[in-house]
């Protein structure tokens, strides 16, 4: 970038910077960045389809430990502990939405319990029917809340394959 000092008048102290190359560079950079810009921030939730699909059997070691199972239904969320057969139900809020805050609070409670203090695994399933649908967004929100509560090893399961399934 050039600079002309003292143009014309001997007493002049004005400095004229040649900003043409600068504008050229900025224009090219702007064009490049506009073309390559990614406007939507996409992230990921890592899940492991735990081996509990219909055609698989449980391993012996899986049966020995208590598993935290989450079943999402269209009107409520069930939290269950296998082996001890403890179940908690979280009903929808008054405005008809799933009560995700209470769900997260209950997960945090479980995380601080002796069963899961040193564990991070959880299994989640959504039970959908033609009349009572459960959407993918609800499952994702449940996974997101579980990760926030410290259960980072999220497993997706069929409702029938949950280790702890409420008897309805």
């Amino acid at each position, binding site marked *: 970038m050039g600079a002309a000092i003292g143009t014309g008048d001997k007493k002049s102290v004005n400095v004229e910077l040649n900003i043409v190359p600068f504008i050229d560079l900025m224009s090219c950079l702007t064009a490049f960045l506009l073309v390559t810009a990614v406007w939507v921030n996409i992230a990921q939730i890592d899940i492991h389809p735990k*081996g509990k699909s219909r055609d698989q059997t449980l391993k012996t070691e899986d049966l020995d430990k208590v598993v935290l199972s989450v079943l999402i239904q269209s009107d409520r969320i069930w939290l269950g502990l296998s082996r001890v057969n403890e179940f908690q139900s979280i009903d929808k809020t008054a405005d008809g939405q799933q009560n995700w805050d209470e769900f997260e609070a209950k997960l945090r409670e479980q995380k601080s319990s002796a069963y899961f203090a040193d564990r991070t695994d959880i299994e989640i399933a959504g039970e959908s029917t033609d009349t009572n649908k459960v959407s993918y967004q609800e499952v994702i929100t449940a996974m997101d809340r579980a990760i926030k509560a410290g259960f980072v090893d999220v497993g997706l399961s069929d409702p029938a394959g949950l280790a702890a399934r409420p008897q309805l």
Partner: protein
Amino acid sequence: MPVRSPGPRLYRSVKFEYLVHSQAGGHGVKASNIALNLTPFVDMMTILVTFLLMVFSSSGEILQAQKGLALPTADAKDVLQTAPVIIVTKSEITYQGQLIATTESVMRDESPTFKIDALFERLDAAAKKIKEDVALGKLSPAVKKACDDMRNGLRPSAGRYCPEGLAILQADESTDVRLVNKVVNTSKAAGFDNLLFAVKNK
């Protein structure tokens, strides 16, 4: 008739006389140079470039925009990495951009295997190829390390997973969870044990 320089003009018949007058040095000679004030332009460009640099993603776009697909939202911030992409829109299921089946036909299918056969075939072939590549060591050192860590039972950091058994599921937020279960079961049966669910940041 003498040939004259046309001089600065705004349009064919509108001269920049008023500008030229204002630039006159007072020596009785009309200056023909016009000084444009470039400061606001440079300011705007600087702000625009700064903003664009902030939103710039060096990893590029891993996922492609699809018609009829709105990703679910989540607070998760883990970055996505390149892997085979299974897309489930409101109307169809595609794998790597190729149509596999319509969602309606998959939902109607009550087969006892509980998987999507056409998708299984594609995924099975892809899983075998990836496994072969990993076995032959056709990987960068970082990916190789991620694969070694996975075999040793170590949890890899986000965006640095071993490509073996790794796939991305890009599904519409309103997709019935039964359909998601079918896709996940099919992926697992084909050897994709680690699925990355693509989500939009809140």
